[in-house]
């Protein structure tokens, strides 16, 4: 299976599961975001561009399935995928704590950005609910689900070997 197909498959399945199963798993006011976790896994393993595209595609599909404002989740997840990918490509490379740190930072950032966007388009969202109660519980669940999801991503998307990475830099000009 090619990388694109594998990423597409992962994101598609994660989106369906998120819409049908995980969104309804309410634990202490929060729900696990498996799509976000898959996205972080893809971004850490494949980089910022793939992360942004996967985030956009998964978010758009989720917007379609849930009949939400089209593009809203796509925008948030595209930025999340890009950010996680950039972190994986730079300071987070080959660091054991990179997935955990990514989950914490991206989960908080997605909650803040989502809240901000919903606020911009005039939707009434309780800041306490979205940024305190739901976020804390969701963050805990994401950390809990993060391990298995990253293991799955690693199994489907084989990590690059050292030799497969770019070894030369071509100077321009």
């Amino acid at each position: 299976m090619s990388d694109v197909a594998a990423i597409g498959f992962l994101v598609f399945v994660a989106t369906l599961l998120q819409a049908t199963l995980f969104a309804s798993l309410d634990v202490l006011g929060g729900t696990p975001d498996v799509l976000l976790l898959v996205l972080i896994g893809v971004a850490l393993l494949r980089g910022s561009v793939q992360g942004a595209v996967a985030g956009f595609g998964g978010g758009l599909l989720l917007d379609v399935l849930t009949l939400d404002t089209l593009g809203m989740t796509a925008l948030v997840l595209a930025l999340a995928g890009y950010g996680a990918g950039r972190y994986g490509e730079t300071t987070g490379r080959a660091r054991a704590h990179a997935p955990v740190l990514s989950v914490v930072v991206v989960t908080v950032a997605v909650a803040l950005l989502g809240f901000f966007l919903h606020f911009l388009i005039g939707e009434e969202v309780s800041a306490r609910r979205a940024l305190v109660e739901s976020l804390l519980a969701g963050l805990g669940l994401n950390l809990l689900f993060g391990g298995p999801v990253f293991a799955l991503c690693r199994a489907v998307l084989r990590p690059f070997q050292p030799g497969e990475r770019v070894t030369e830099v071509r100077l321009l000009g």
Partner: protein
Amino acid sequence: MLGLLLLLALALITISFRESESGPLHTAQASVASALQPLTVAVERVVRPFRDAYDWTEGLFSARADVAALRAENEELRQLLIQNESALQRNVELTRLLEYVESPRFPSDFTFVAASVTSQPSSAFEQAIVLPVGSNHSVELQAPVVTGEGLVGLVTRVEPNLSRVTLLTDAASAVSAIALRTGAAGIVEHGQTGDSLVLSRVSKADNVEVGDEIVTSGWRQGELASLYPPGIPIGRVTYASSLDTDLYQQIQIESDVDFSSLDSVLVLVRGEESASR
């Protein structure tokens, strides 16, 4: 690439937000959602057992919370039941006292002060109770104290609003008594053990049998008179024997009064109006 995706997303948001529900983007979204609906339904069916398992587990947690709440409620109701039973018991006791007061057995030249017991005997050495009535309520020193079941004791200390009653089971108590059936006279005193009572100084010539009812004699001799009015029940004979070596009969009696759990009593007051507290 990121910029392109962001622009596209912003454009989608803007159009989706601005256009009507029947606009092309909404229509496209609804169409795609409809097309994916069978897939969503299929996935939903596949994951339903997992969701049911989660709901079941979550139900267990809420069931535990429900159990805790029901236990608390049960405890509250149990307390209420105990209070109700206590009130019922008290009602029965007071009714019994009232029946005694209205019965012919109640001494004719006495009235009563009803009182609840505020202090029970604190030890085997202190066979006395405390009542929340005193001289302000016409209670006098050495006034007899009774219940519907019989004689309880004698007031041995009176304060304005308190009085101390030495029980019949105290070693210092002694009451002149007679066997109701034969008129055999003796003195009721504390026995050898616990709350046991004996009828002492009964002549061997007198006929006393097991089951005979013992009541206060209420004697009067010139200016002297018994502290107790006549006819107050004390107890029933449970043992009677007459040995050749004894001067008097050995008679044990058992009171109907439960001295260990006295709740309400009547203090007999000579010829005054009754009161209760």
